């Protein structure tokens, strides 16, 4: 579990200010969904936390500034699953999962029995065994998503960063993927920071939502307070109904009638 503190976080890419003074505190073990319209800065925030872009302000993981940590130290503290991971087509599933052990290996060292064990466990926990010897290109979208999660899990980092983990999955696979994250989080005490498009899923799985718009943090709080008709319509320019069904929040798009 990792506590994250963002303080006045700003990122400029080229001449554009992509993130502008974002401050937030994330408690150990929380599941935070980053929501907001396209271009709001969700991915950039994840990439800043992962140490992939230069930033102003401060990002600390359990009190340590990300930019002052060595690459390997960052990699031992967080696992990052990008939106469209590059999967080498001929690489085998087990080889790919084993790459997650890289941050724990010396520069030119080979995997120890412990590394094989950790990768083996990740394969087992994500039910990858039936296709663990198959090349990545033979997998379906849902299987690929699980394999990428498997690699992140083998990394044994206490913080999991997910960028749109459910894009390109059907509704059933979306649910399965997020349930999986929820289970893993429970088993391994993970802090989860996850950019999401689907507001209903975000509201149902996350403890808190952070709403970004034009690079600024405009609202933060429990799903019931953030996934509201007013906020969604203001920042997404969408007409929606928000209904609560058995304690679960659902955001339903409503077609604008011209008549």
């Amino acid at each position, binding site marked *: 579990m990792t506590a994250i503190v963002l303080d006045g976080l700003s990122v400029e890419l080229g001449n554009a200010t992509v993130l502008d003074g974002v401050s937030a505190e994330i408690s150990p073990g929380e599941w935070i969904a980053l929501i907001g319209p396209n271009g709001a800065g969700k991915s950039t925030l994840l*990439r800043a936390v*992962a*140490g*992939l872009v230069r930033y102003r302000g401060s990002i600390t993981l359990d009190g340590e500034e990300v930019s002052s940590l060595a*690459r*390997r*130290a*960052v*990699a*031992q503290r*967080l*696992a*990052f699953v*990008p939106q469209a*991971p*590059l*999967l*080498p*087509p*001929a*690489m*085998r599933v*087990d*080889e*790919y*999962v*084993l*790459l*997650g052990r*890289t*941050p724990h*290996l010396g520069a*030119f060292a*080979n*995997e*120890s*029995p*412990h590394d*094989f*064990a*950790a*990768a*083996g*466990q990740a*394969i*087992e926990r994500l039910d990858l*065994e039936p296709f*663990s*010897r198959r*090349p990545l*290109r033979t997998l379906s979208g849902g299987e690929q998503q699980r394999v990428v999660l498997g690699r992140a899990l083998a*990394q044994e980092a206490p913080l999991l960063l997910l960028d749109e983990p459910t894009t390109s999955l059907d509704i059933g696979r979306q649910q399965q993927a997020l349930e999986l994250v929820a289970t893993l989080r429970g088993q391994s005490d993970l802090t989860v920071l996850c950019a999401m498009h689907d507001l209903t899923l975000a509201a149902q799985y996350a403890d808190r939502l952070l709403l970004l718009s034009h690079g600024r943090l405009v609202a933060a709080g429990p799903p019931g307070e953030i996934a509201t008709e007013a906020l969604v319509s203001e920042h997404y320019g969408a007409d929606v109904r928000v209904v609560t069904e058995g304690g679960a929040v659902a955001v339903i798009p409503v077609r604008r009638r011209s008549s």
Partner: protein
Amino acid sequence: MSIAARGQLAEGGATRTPSPPRALVPALGAVGFLAVALLVGLFVGPVHIGIGAIIRSAASHIPLLGIHSNLSATDSAILWQLRAPRVVLGLLVGGMLALAGGSYQGVFRNPLVDPYLLGVAAGAGLGATIAIAYAGNAVGSYDLLPLTAFGGASLAVAITYVLGTSAAGGRSPAALVLAGVTVVSFLTAIQTFIQQQHSQSLQEVYSWILGRLDTAGWHDVALVAPYVVVSSAVILAHRRMLDVLAVGDEEATTLGVNVRRVRLTIVVFATIGTAAAVAVSGLIGFVGIIVPHAVRLVIGSSYRIVLPLSLLAGGGFLVLADVIARTIVSPAELPIGVVTAFFGAPFFAIVLRTSRTFT
């Protein structure tokens, strides 16, 4: 055994994790192929020397065995002063080109890349042309050519790298490849100009470009060996890193890898090794693409296995190609580059057709 199963074994504590079984058979195959290639290289020639005599003679060089060679002094000289250095040079050059090609394909994540991509060939070609055109048959030009070729190759890649990393797109492999194209065109233009001015040197330049393993004894071997050994050692030490790079620069970074440093290190050492190989053997094409590809098609994509096996298979391949080059139109010699392309391309086509694991 799957990684999961091995992990459980390892957790049990009693068993040490076995090395991957898939790697053992191909590794033995590659070593066997190389051994056969070396023997064929020593055996084939205008003077007949039996395989048994070759092995006896080789063994007699190993102290403490007490084996005596039954070769005549002439045969012994033919074997150890003419054929052996040529075979060893083929081994070093072929192994280096294949290893460099495989590692270039890894750092650029592009299976069509060869070790000449960043200007090694064009730079070496220009260096050699300058030596041939301006030094001619002057005393010492024989030693001058490898030097200017090596210098030209290194300089060309250095320019490519500076140009590629300072480009607007900066730091991406694609920018580097485009910079390579630019440098190659420019250097080739200069080379063509010099050739036009010194048309009497055309044939010599041309024959150098087609590549040859024609040696003056052990001299060239000694010249190239240190570069090949050091470059190979550094590249092989990074072979696991190349697997990590395969998942993309950003993800490799989040796995704790300094992507730029790894890429630069591999490019530098692959270039030095290739430049040294090219300096003594000319521009032998095809080895750097075909060998790593063939290895990959047979055993899978992991660079941890592909690179060491490419080194072995590349050495064996070039030794055999040289045997063909010096026998097929005997007593004349075919340029070895013609042989590698002529036999390499169909071989590659066959592997491509019969393999189920092509990416």
